């Protein structure tokens, strides 16, 4: 099962913007190691920034893939900016708001804003921002030999993609 770091898609403006949300729960194993109790003090469970970056990459990657009906293999190529200014704790939610800056045959550049919902405040607070470049990997110049089927947007992505995924999309070249 692929790691999915978004729970639901909230908004989709085709070829422009995708907004997804993730709820952070203390039941998630990784929070017990990040950070565990130790000589420094009691446990301090916090959502790792690296996994928030992965959540944004999945959100923006789905947006980029959706432009061409998931026919392209969309691979994260480069994180040109990733800034995290505040923490996210269990009981809070994360919103990933991704927009496409530019897209062509070679790939796409995206910008993202990461926000945090706190039930006590009842408000979203912006806590980070990203700039991520994706490659349409079959078009890249490196000449890599890759599987013919679309391993990026496979079967295990279908639950989250829901209505975004046309019948048969991403599977056209599968064997």
């Amino acid at each position, binding site marked *: 099962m692929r790691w999915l770091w978004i729970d639901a898609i909230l908004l989709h403006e085709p070829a422009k913007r995708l907004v997804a949300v993730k709820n952070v729960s203390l039941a998630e194993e990784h929070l017990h190691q990040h950070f565990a109790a130790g000589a420094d003090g009691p446990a301090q469970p916090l959502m790792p920034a690296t996994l928030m970056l992965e959540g944004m990459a999945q959100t923006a990657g789905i947006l980029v893939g959706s432009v061409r009906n998931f026919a392209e293999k969309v691979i994260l*190529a480069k994180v040109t900016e990733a800034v995290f200014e505040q923490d996210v704790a269990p009981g809070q939610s994360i919103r990933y708001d991704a927009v496409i*800056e*530019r897209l062509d045959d*070679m790939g796409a*550049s995206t910008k993202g804003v990461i926000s945090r919902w706190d039930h006590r405040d009842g408000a979203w607070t912006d806590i980070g921002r990203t700039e991520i*470049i994706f*490659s349409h990997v079959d078009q890249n*110049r490196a*000449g890599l030999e890759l599987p013919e089927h679309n391993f990026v947007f496979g079967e295990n992505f279908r639950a989250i993609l829901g209505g975004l995924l046309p019948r048969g999309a991403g599977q056209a070249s599968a064997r």
Partner: protein
Amino acid sequence: MTQDEIFGKVRTVLVDALGVDEEEVTMGARLTTDLHAESIDFLDIVFRIEKAFGFKIGQGELFPDNINDPKYVQDGVVNANGLALLRERMPHVDFSEFAKNPKLEKVSEIFTVASLVSFVAAKLQAGSPAKSSAAKLA
């Protein structure tokens, strides 16, 4: 826009895209061997130059497209036809050194900061939108 102004903007693009210091970005610096650009950085550089100068760059126009076609490349070496096409499509690049030992794997090493400045100057002078067929060798 003068060449110095173009160079200044190109330098900012490369500092931002490659994380290099301004002093490293000289006209003669090679993008790969001197400034440590990797293949994916070329896509980033294309995007940033478009944004900085306000024009569109067609696929394969600034950097060569997939050129691994038997018509142009045999046993990993770019042949005379391939070289002729590269020169025709990419006049902003000096292929003279590359032509002496035209191994395909070395093609990305020929791009210098001067190549980018020359490309931008020609684009600004032409003032026309990118042609999608440019340098489509594959």
